[in-house]
Protein backbone atom coordinates (compact mmCIF):
# COMPACT_ATOMS: atom_id res chain seq x y z
CA UNK A 1 0.00 0.00 0.00
CA UNK A 2 2.83 2.39 0.95
CA UNK A 3 4.75 1.34 -2.17
CA UNK A 4 1.73 2.09 -4.33
CA UNK A 5 1.30 5.46 -2.63
CA UNK A 6 4.98 6.31 -3.12
CA UNK A 7 4.75 5.27 -6.75
CA UNK A 8 1.76 7.54 -7.21
CA UNK A 9 3.51 10.51 -5.62
CA UNK A 10 6.67 9.92 -7.63
CA UNK A 11 4.66 9.63 -10.85
CA UNK A 12 3.02 12.95 -10.00
CA UNK A 13 6.38 14.54 -9.27
CA UNK A 14 8.37 13.31 -12.24
CA UNK A 15 6.47 10.69 -14.20
CA UNK A 16 5.91 10.54 -17.95
CA UNK A 17 3.07 12.77 -19.21
CA UNK A 18 0.64 9.83 -19.21
CA UNK A 19 1.71 8.67 -15.74
CA UNK A 20 1.52 12.25 -14.46
CA UNK A 21 -2.03 12.74 -15.72
CA UNK A 22 -3.17 9.43 -14.25
CA UNK A 23 -1.45 10.17 -10.93
CA UNK A 24 -2.93 13.66 -10.76
CA UNK A 25 -6.45 12.37 -11.40
CA UNK A 26 -6.03 9.72 -8.71
CA UNK A 27 -4.65 12.25 -6.23
CA UNK A 28 -7.52 14.61 -7.05
CA UNK A 29 -10.13 11.97 -6.30
CA UNK A 30 -8.33 10.88 -3.15
CA UNK A 31 -7.99 14.37 -1.71
CA UNK A 32 -10.72 16.57 -3.15
CA UNK A 33 -13.06 16.04 -0.19
CA UNK A 34 -10.37 16.90 2.33
CA UNK A 35 -9.28 19.96 0.37
CA UNK A 36 -12.88 21.11 -0.14
CA UNK A 37 -13.69 20.58 3.55
CA UNK A 38 -10.62 22.53 4.63
CA UNK A 39 -11.40 25.46 2.35
CA UNK A 40 -15.06 25.44 3.41
CA UNK A 41 -13.97 25.85 7.02
CA UNK A 42 -12.11 29.01 6.02
CA UNK A 43 -14.44 30.66 3.50
CA UNK A 44 -17.71 29.25 4.88
CA UNK A 45 -19.49 29.27 1.55
CA UNK A 46 -19.96 26.08 -0.49
CA UNK A 47 -19.89 27.69 -3.94
CA UNK A 48 -16.72 29.62 -3.13
CA UNK A 49 -15.18 26.51 -1.60
CA UNK A 50 -15.84 24.61 -4.83
CA UNK A 51 -14.22 27.34 -6.92
CA UNK A 52 -11.22 27.45 -4.62
CA UNK A 53 -10.89 23.67 -4.66
CA UNK A 54 -10.53 23.85 -8.45
CA UNK A 55 -8.06 26.71 -8.05
CA UNK A 56 -6.10 24.72 -5.47
CA UNK A 57 -5.74 21.66 -7.68
CA UNK A 58 -4.70 23.89 -10.57
CA UNK A 59 -2.00 25.40 -8.35
CA UNK A 60 -1.01 21.92 -7.17
CA UNK A 61 -0.55 20.79 -10.78
CA UNK A 62 1.48 23.85 -11.65
CA UNK A 63 3.69 23.52 -8.54
CA UNK A 64 4.32 19.78 -8.91
CA UNK A 65 8.04 20.35 -9.57
CA UNK A 66 8.45 21.66 -6.02
CA UNK A 67 6.54 18.76 -4.46
CA UNK A 68 8.57 16.48 -2.21
CA UNK A 69 6.99 13.01 -2.14
CA UNK A 70 8.79 12.15 1.10
CA UNK A 71 6.83 14.87 2.94
CA UNK A 72 3.42 13.60 1.85
CA UNK A 73 0.70 15.07 -0.30
CA UNK A 74 -1.99 16.03 2.17
CA UNK A 75 -0.07 18.64 4.14
CA UNK A 76 1.32 20.17 0.98
CA UNK A 77 -2.13 20.32 -0.61
CA UNK A 78 -3.52 21.86 2.57
CA UNK A 79 -0.90 24.60 2.53
CA UNK A 80 -1.72 25.42 -1.08
CA UNK A 81 -5.45 25.38 -0.30
CA UNK A 82 -4.89 27.71 2.65
CA UNK A 83 -2.93 30.10 0.45
CA UNK A 84 -5.70 30.05 -2.18
CA UNK A 85 -8.32 30.75 0.49
CA UNK A 86 -6.19 33.53 1.95
CA UNK A 87 -5.84 35.15 -1.48
CA UNK A 88 -9.62 34.98 -1.85
CA UNK A 89 -10.21 36.52 1.59
CA UNK A 90 -7.87 39.36 0.64
CA UNK A 91 -9.80 40.09 -2.54
CA UNK A 92 -13.33 39.74 -1.15
CA UNK A 93 -15.16 42.59 0.53
CA UNK A 94 -16.44 41.63 3.99
CA UNK A 95 -19.92 43.01 3.32
CA UNK A 96 -20.16 41.11 0.03
CA UNK A 97 -19.43 37.74 1.53
CA UNK A 98 -22.44 35.53 1.89
CA UNK A 99 -23.52 34.26 5.28
CA UNK A 100 -22.70 30.68 6.11
CA UNK A 101 -24.92 28.22 4.28
CA UNK A 102 -23.35 25.20 5.86
CA UNK A 103 -24.89 22.73 8.25
CA UNK A 104 -24.09 23.91 11.73
CA UNK A 105 -25.04 22.82 15.23
CA UNK A 106 -27.57 24.98 17.05
CA UNK A 107 -25.57 26.67 19.76
CA UNK A 108 -27.65 29.78 20.01
CA UNK A 109 -27.78 31.62 23.28
CA UNK A 110 -31.20 33.18 23.82
CA UNK A 111 -29.53 36.21 25.40
CA UNK A 112 -27.66 36.95 22.19
CA UNK A 113 -29.92 38.40 19.55
CA UNK A 114 -29.66 37.69 15.86
CA UNK A 115 -28.68 41.32 15.34
CA UNK A 116 -25.73 41.02 17.69
CA UNK A 117 -24.63 37.79 16.05
CA UNK A 118 -24.80 39.50 12.69
CA UNK A 119 -22.68 42.41 13.98
CA UNK A 120 -20.12 40.01 15.44
CA UNK A 121 -19.92 38.13 12.14
CA UNK A 122 -19.42 41.35 10.18
CA UNK A 123 -16.82 42.67 12.62
CA UNK A 124 -14.98 39.37 12.32
CA UNK A 125 -15.04 39.55 8.52
CA UNK A 126 -13.47 42.99 8.70
CA UNK A 127 -10.37 41.66 10.43
CA UNK A 128 -7.18 41.37 8.40
CA UNK A 129 -7.36 38.08 6.46
CA UNK A 130 -4.23 36.62 8.06
CA UNK A 131 -5.67 37.21 11.55
CA UNK A 132 -9.08 36.02 10.51
CA UNK A 133 -7.89 32.77 8.98
CA UNK A 134 -5.91 31.89 12.11
CA UNK A 135 -8.87 32.71 14.38
CA UNK A 136 -11.32 30.85 12.14
CA UNK A 137 -9.32 27.65 12.27
CA UNK A 138 -8.13 27.87 15.89
CA UNK A 139 -11.16 29.43 17.62
CA UNK A 140 -14.24 28.69 15.54
CA UNK A 141 -13.17 25.29 14.23
CA UNK A 142 -11.13 24.53 17.36
CA UNK A 143 -8.36 22.87 15.39
CA UNK A 144 -5.03 22.23 17.14
CA UNK A 145 -2.64 25.16 16.86
CA UNK A 146 -0.03 22.82 15.40
CA UNK A 147 -2.31 21.96 12.44
CA UNK A 148 -3.12 25.62 11.88
CA UNK A 149 0.56 26.53 12.01
CA UNK A 150 1.46 23.87 9.45
CA UNK A 151 -1.29 24.98 7.10
CA UNK A 152 -0.29 28.62 7.35
CA UNK A 153 3.43 27.90 7.21
CA UNK A 154 4.11 29.74 10.48
CA UNK A 155 5.09 28.75 14.02
CA UNK A 156 2.63 27.75 16.74
CA UNK A 157 3.66 30.89 18.68
CA UNK A 158 2.75 33.01 15.64
CA UNK A 159 -0.67 31.33 15.45
CA UNK A 160 -1.30 32.10 19.12
CA UNK A 161 -0.25 35.69 18.58
CA UNK A 162 -2.53 36.10 15.56
CA UNK A 163 -5.46 34.61 17.46
CA UNK A 164 -4.81 36.91 20.39
CA UNK A 165 -4.62 39.96 18.11
CA UNK A 166 -7.77 38.90 16.24
CA UNK A 167 -9.76 38.56 19.46
CA UNK A 168 -8.45 41.83 20.85
CA UNK A 169 -9.33 43.73 17.67
CA UNK A 170 -12.72 42.04 17.49
CA UNK A 171 -13.46 42.99 21.07
CA UNK A 172 -12.41 46.60 20.42
CA UNK A 173 -14.55 46.79 17.30
CA UNK A 174 -17.58 45.41 19.15
CA UNK A 175 -17.07 47.82 22.03
CA UNK A 176 -17.05 50.70 19.53
CA UNK A 177 -20.46 49.47 18.37
CA UNK A 178 -21.72 49.42 21.95
CA UNK A 179 -21.55 45.65 22.31
CA UNK A 180 -19.74 44.46 25.41
CA UNK A 181 -18.66 40.85 24.95
Amino acid at each position, binding site marked *: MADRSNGLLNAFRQGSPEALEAAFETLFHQHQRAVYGWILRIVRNPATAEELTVETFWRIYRARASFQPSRGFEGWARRIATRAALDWLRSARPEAELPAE*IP*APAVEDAAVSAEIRSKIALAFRRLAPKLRIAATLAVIEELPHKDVAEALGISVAAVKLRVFRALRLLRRNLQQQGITP
Partner: protein
Amino acid sequence: MNAHDEDRLKKLLQQALPPVEGEQEPGRDLWPAVLRRLDARPAAPAPVFWSWFDGALLAGLAVFAAFLPASIPVFLYYL
Protein backbone atom coordinates in the same frame (compact mmCIF):
# COMPACT_ATOMS: atom_id res chain seq x y z
CA MET B 1 -8.63 40.88 28.25
CA ASN B 2 -8.72 38.15 30.89
CA ALA B 3 -9.35 34.45 30.31
CA HIS B 4 -13.05 34.76 31.15
CA ASP B 5 -13.55 37.58 28.64
CA GLU B 6 -11.65 35.61 26.06
CA ASP B 7 -13.82 32.51 26.58
CA ARG B 8 -16.98 34.61 26.38
CA LEU B 9 -15.80 36.22 23.14
CA LYS B 10 -14.93 32.82 21.68
CA LYS B 11 -18.40 31.53 22.52
CA LEU B 12 -20.04 34.57 20.96
CA LEU B 13 -17.92 34.11 17.87
CA GLN B 14 -18.93 30.47 17.59
CA GLN B 15 -22.58 31.47 17.87
CA ALA B 16 -22.20 34.08 15.17
CA LEU B 17 -20.16 31.80 12.91
CA PRO B 18 -20.83 28.19 13.89
CA PRO B 19 -18.13 25.64 13.14
CA VAL B 20 -18.55 23.43 10.08
CA GLU B 21 -20.07 20.16 11.15
CA GLY B 22 -18.80 16.80 9.96
CA GLU B 23 -17.23 15.95 6.62
CA GLN B 24 -18.52 18.09 3.82
CA GLU B 25 -18.51 17.18 0.16
CA PRO B 26 -18.68 19.38 -2.91
CA GLY B 27 -22.13 19.50 -4.46
CA ARG B 28 -20.81 18.45 -7.88
CA ASP B 29 -17.94 16.60 -9.47
CA LEU B 30 -15.13 19.14 -9.69
CA TRP B 31 -12.82 17.09 -11.93
CA PRO B 32 -14.27 18.48 -15.22
CA ALA B 33 -13.74 22.01 -13.88
CA VAL B 34 -10.13 21.19 -12.97
CA LEU B 35 -9.54 19.82 -16.50
CA ARG B 36 -11.07 22.95 -18.04
CA ARG B 37 -8.84 25.09 -15.85
CA LEU B 38 -5.75 23.13 -16.87
CA ASP B 39 -6.66 23.35 -20.55
CA ALA B 40 -7.30 27.08 -20.42
CA ARG B 41 -4.61 29.16 -22.04
CA PRO B 42 -2.27 30.49 -19.40
CA ALA B 43 -2.75 34.16 -18.70
CA ALA B 44 -0.28 36.53 -20.30
CA PRO B 45 2.36 37.77 -17.87
CA ALA B 46 1.43 41.04 -16.27
CA PRO B 47 3.05 44.01 -18.01
CA VAL B 48 5.75 45.76 -16.04
CA PHE B 49 4.83 49.33 -15.19
CA TRP B 50 7.48 51.88 -14.36
CA SER B 51 6.55 54.92 -12.39
CA TRP B 52 8.44 58.20 -12.62
CA PHE B 53 9.84 57.45 -9.17
CA ASP B 54 11.37 54.15 -10.36
CA GLY B 55 13.03 55.99 -13.25
CA ALA B 56 14.29 58.80 -11.03
CA LEU B 57 15.68 56.31 -8.51
CA LEU B 58 17.49 54.37 -11.21
CA ALA B 59 18.90 57.57 -12.74
CA GLY B 60 20.03 58.74 -9.30
CA LEU B 61 21.80 55.44 -8.65
CA ALA B 62 23.49 55.56 -12.05
CA VAL B 63 24.77 59.10 -11.42
CA PHE B 64 25.91 58.17 -7.93
CA ALA B 65 27.75 55.09 -9.24
CA ALA B 66 29.36 57.17 -12.02
CA PHE B 67 30.79 59.63 -9.50
CA LEU B 68 31.64 57.03 -6.87
CA PRO B 69 32.53 53.77 -8.65
CA ALA B 70 33.67 52.30 -5.34
CA SER B 71 30.01 52.21 -4.28
CA ILE B 72 29.09 49.68 -7.01
CA PRO B 73 30.13 46.60 -4.98
CA VAL B 74 28.09 47.95 -2.07
CA PHE B 75 25.00 48.26 -4.30
CA LEU B 76 25.60 44.76 -5.67
CA TYR B 77 25.90 43.42 -2.15
CA TYR B 78 22.48 44.79 -1.21
CA LEU B 79 20.72 43.60 -4.38
